[in-house]
């Protein structure tokens, strides 16, 4: 998230698109505080949820039509003088001119290659000046400006169209548009924030959904200001951290690309391709080589590309994601599998495929706090254990209270937790597992002279062991992530204080450059800091934990001030330029001061020309988005599926696309899986006529391992259920509490019907469309047991990140034989 939960209280309008009250209840208190201060809350959700109950306006929207809705809002803002003109003109690329070759026609952007099902993106670029800089018209009038292109693009997203596509009555849409866009305008006086979670991401246009809402926020000038920003809510305790530390197929720690064979054959090419010409990422070589140094130490030398080849190279970009794993596993490509704190037998889309794939493994290692469906897949209902030859190793895992370490929360806040007690029996931390596995592997390869094994031998694996279980020191791992001046021994390693100290010459080691500063000297663990300011001056509480980067609590905060460095809104000041600030003898006066760590060159004056060199090369005095090569936010951004978000229907939809003849995202990923394990319902299917959306509940946690095994939580929601409108229930003769069978082309599940007036049918293009909702926490192990909702979900994905479409699919529901109702 760009902002901070605490800061939500400063918003004047809050648009929640997730189910925040249910899934992030404690964070939701800041929405309640904002309401108490007079803020209005809009909740956009297909269902009326516990979030809707506390909202001023509930906007029911058919699942899978978010871009139509956001597009409609953008069109409303642009057509009704609601954009924050100066912000848009100077802080975004709205004023850039786009190549004349770029165009859009009936749902397709230029450059589509129908055979390869991909876009050639060469025309999706700026027109450039002779010096290579983009051509710009800050009046935004030039027809080739991004702004004018956007205006044309979204002119089709009229309130009437929004009503037809999303099922939101026009009057309600206009009410919402007027309310939310009241936070914009040339003379902006308010701020608004937008909250999202997997409601937007789990679609075949998931990334474009997020882009759309970010663009709306940019048009209204809401990014970087108190009470503004984008609130991204993550589901697990450490989704943010696991992503930062790149337990992800496409990344290395600190958001650096995992090398691709054909693009990055060697270090020089990697750095050349991956390092932009401007913006803060020009320092990537320092971060990347520091990473290699942290991993391979003295074995990482200039002569061997700092051990670049010790890291594998991906064969191609379209591979290795979670969904790829199970398709490939099912095809027999994968022999061994670790599921460490994850339960794909329940959590994976198309979970029947996932369980069938597990049966094809030679060996499976599961580590979790409780027994999981994944660990027990060989004796799942209907499975004959004798037929399964997979060896399974189950290791009991320790919860946070039984180990030291850090978790990075949804606002990038790194917080340390202490081991309160030793874990019981043979329970160990995952750190213990990986560390001791690494030690064993290193021992097994100790005598190898093969080239391919040299990385293992070089691997720096020197974390001190503590206590009776030889637990590796988490503090030392964190110190390595923070980085230090390279030395072979811990006693000689001097911690880096900021990532600015990272070097590209092999003298520094840093395991995750964005975390630098969390452990600035060997005695100071800022993640464990628990200082609070009670004076009210530091409302963002910089003394509590450490937020990456550089303990910054609100990102892009330079954008909270105008072109002269003064706050856009006096009451919403965050940082501002103090022209008289003394920077020491000989240095020019002036610096950024205020309530947060400036996300900017601390002495880079407003209106200063672009830096020609230095760590902020290419960034000038009015370029608040310093990670971008051009310093401005990208309204126009060439993703693999288009530079502007465009509405397409979900892969399974009850209606044709009303906005263009292109039914679905033309580059969406749809896996071909053997044995008919990924059948897709046709558009407007009569066999599967209802929209299905899946979601979570407050009282359970993801695949249920950490909730369905806990008596107090299992007791809260024991029976698996499907929420069904009264109208549909009447049509199908279903009563509240009946056992029903919900089916999709992938499978069917039985569960209880919860008939409720909180779900209502939509009117889509004049036709009634029913929608049902099913939470997905249940499985066959635990106190609370039930069928696996993800058995219904298809193996389809967003083309940028391969996230599945579990928020919008088609299903059928029928009353089942009333036996065994739990």
């Amino acid at each position, binding site marked *: 998230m760009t902002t901070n939960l605490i800061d939500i209280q400063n918003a004047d309008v809050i648009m929640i698109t997730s189910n925040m009250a249910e899934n992030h209840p404690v964070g939701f208190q800041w929405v309640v505080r904002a309401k108490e201060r007079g803020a209005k809350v809009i909740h956009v959700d297909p269902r009326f949820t516990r979030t809707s109950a506390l909202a001023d306006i509930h906007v029911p929207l058919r699942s899978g039509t978010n871009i139509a809705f956001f597009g409609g809002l953008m069109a409303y803002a642009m057509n009704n003088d609601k954009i924050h003109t100066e912000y848009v003109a100077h802080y975004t690329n709205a004023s850039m001119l786009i190549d004349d070759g770029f165009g859009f026609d009936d749902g397709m952007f230029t450059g589509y290659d129908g055979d390869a099902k991909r876009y050639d993106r060469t025309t999706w670029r700026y027109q450039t000046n002779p010096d290579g800089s983009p051509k710009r018209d800050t009046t935004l009038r030039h027809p080739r400006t991004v702004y004018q292109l956007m205006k044309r693009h979204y002119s089709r997203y009229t309130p009437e169209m929004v009503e037809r596509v999303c099922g939101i009555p026009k009057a309600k849409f206009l009410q919402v548009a007027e309310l939310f866009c009241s936070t914009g305008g040339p003379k902006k006086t308010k701020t608004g924030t937008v909250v999202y979670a997997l409601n937007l991401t789990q679609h075949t246009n998931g990334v474009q959904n997020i882009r759309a809402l970010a663009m709306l926020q940019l048009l209204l000038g809401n990014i970087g200001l108190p009470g503004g920003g984008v609130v991204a809510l993550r589901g697990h305790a450490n989704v943010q951290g696991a992503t930062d530390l790149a337990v992800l197929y496409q990344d290395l720690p600190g958001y650096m690309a995992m090398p691709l064979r054909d693009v990055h054959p060697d270090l020089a090419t990697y750095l050349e391709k991956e390092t932009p010409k401007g913006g803060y990422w020009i320092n990537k070589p320092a971060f990347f080589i520091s990473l290699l140094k942290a991993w391979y130490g003295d074995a990482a030398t200039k002569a061997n590309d700092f051990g670049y080849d010790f890291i594998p190279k991906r064969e191609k970009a379209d591979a290795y994601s979670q969904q790829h794993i199970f398709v490939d596993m099912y095809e027999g490509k994968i022999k061994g599998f670790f599921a460490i704190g994850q339960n794909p037998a329940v959590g994976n889309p198309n979970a029947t495929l996932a369980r069938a794939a597990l049966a094809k493994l030679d060996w499976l290692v599961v580590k979790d706090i409780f027994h999981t469906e994944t660990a027990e897949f060989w004796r799942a209902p209907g499975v004959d254990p004798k037929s399964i030859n997979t060896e399974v190793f189950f290791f009991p895992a320790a919860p946070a209270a039984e180990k030291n370490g850090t978790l990075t929360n949804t606002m990038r806040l790194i917080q340390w937790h202490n081991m309160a007690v030793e874990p019981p029996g043979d329970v160990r931390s995952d750190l213990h597992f990986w560390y001791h596995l690494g030690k064993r592997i290193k021992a097994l390869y100790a005598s190898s002279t093969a080239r391919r094994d040299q990385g293992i031998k070089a691997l720096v694996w020197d974390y001190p062991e503590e206590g009776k279980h030889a637990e590796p020191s988490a503090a030392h791992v964190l110190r390595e992530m923070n980085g230090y001046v390279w030395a072979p021994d811990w006693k000689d390693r001097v911690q880096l204080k900021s990532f600015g100290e990272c070097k590209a010459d092999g003298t520094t080691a840093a395991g995750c450059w964005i975390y630098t500063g969390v452990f600035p000297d060997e005695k100071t663990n800022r993640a464990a800091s628990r200082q609070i300011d009670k004076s009210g001056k530091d409302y963002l509480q910089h003394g509590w934990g450490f937020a990456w980067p550089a303990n910054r609590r609100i990102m892009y905060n330079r954008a909270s001030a105008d072109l002269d460095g003064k706050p856009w809104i006096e009451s919403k000041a965050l940082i501002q330029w103090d022209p008289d600030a003394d920077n020491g003898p000989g240095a020019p006066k002036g610096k950024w001061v205020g309530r947060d760590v400036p996300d900017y060159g601390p002495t880079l004056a407003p209106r200063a020309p672009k830096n020609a060199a230095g760590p902020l090369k290419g960034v000038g005095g009015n370029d608040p988005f310093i990670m971008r090569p051009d310093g401005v936010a990208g309204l126009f951004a060439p993703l693999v599926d288009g530079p502007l978000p465009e509405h397409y229907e979900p892969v399974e939809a009850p209606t044709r696309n009303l906005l263009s003849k292109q039914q679905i995202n033309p580059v969406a990923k749809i896996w071909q899986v053997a044995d008919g394990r990924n059948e897709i319902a046709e558009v407007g299917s009569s066999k599967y006529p209802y929209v299905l959306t899946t979601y979570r509940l407050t009282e359970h946690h993801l695949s249920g391992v950490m909730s369905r095994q806990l008596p107090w939580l299992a007791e809260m929601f*024991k029976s698996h259920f499907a929420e069904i409108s009264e109208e549909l229930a009447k049509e199908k003769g279903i009563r509240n509490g009946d056992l029903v069978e919900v089916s999709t082309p992938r499978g069917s599940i039985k569960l209880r019907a919860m008939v409720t007036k909180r779900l209502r049918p939509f009117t889509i293009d004049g036709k009634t469309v029913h929608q049902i909702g099913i939470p997905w926490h249940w499985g066959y192990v635990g106190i609370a047991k039930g069928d696996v909702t993800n058995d219904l979900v298809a193996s389809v994905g967003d083309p940028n990140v391969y996230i599945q479409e579990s928020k919008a699919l088609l299903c059928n529901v029928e009353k089942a034989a009333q036996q065994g109702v739990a």
Partner: protein
Amino acid sequence: MAATMTQKVMYTDTTICTGCRACMVACKQWNQLPYEEPEWTGGYGNRSHFSDKAWRFVRFIEVDDPRPSHKGEVQWLMMSDVCKHCQQAGCLEACPTGAIHRTAWGTVDIDQGICNGCRDCVASCPFGVIAFNADTGRVNKCTFCSDRVPAGMPTACAKTCPTSSIRFGDKEPMLEMARARVKELKAQGFERANLYGDSDILGGLNAFYVLADSPSVYGLPERPELPQRNVNLDSALAIASSVVIGLAALVSFRDQGAGRQG
């Protein structure tokens, strides 16, 4: 310490309750209450009664939005129900042993060492709060965290409540807050918003509520009364009946022939 304490209350603003049920779990956690088989309520609730193992539970109520401005829309009311710690407490009056007592900070608690399990309190609570515990043969209910409060800690439920729907504090300021909140809600169109538990109800509830709609919508009695109000009248009528029967017996058995002897 306890003797000098001011009156403590819990003020629950149901209009900011998200029904997350953290209060239920926190109560179970602090008071170490075990699992109990839930019931299917047809909605998100997992029970519709208090029990010896559930001293708090959240009621989920789906209704038509009470605001005229939201006519035709659904509203989902949630309310975390608990012992009201009445100023005039039926359970306390009924208790023959003195196990149920008023604490120094004004709440009603049960001394498990004294309770003998007669269950008169169970029948005497107009809110159905007290429940019989078959394992101990005694009765249980919310203690108002009578171990935490004297130590200066808020009740476990109030402390954990994410939105501060449940607040713990001194009576007067809390009541002020609640009254102001009712005004606010009325201004927002909740015409039937009310403070449930001011001095008009059982002399004042020490766990009081701001409701968006009428009490009965939440399953609360509109005008609960102290059950023991009946004792005097019922006794008088019983005495009258005794007199009638006594006279009848006298007339029936009077020794008319011999007159009174000895």
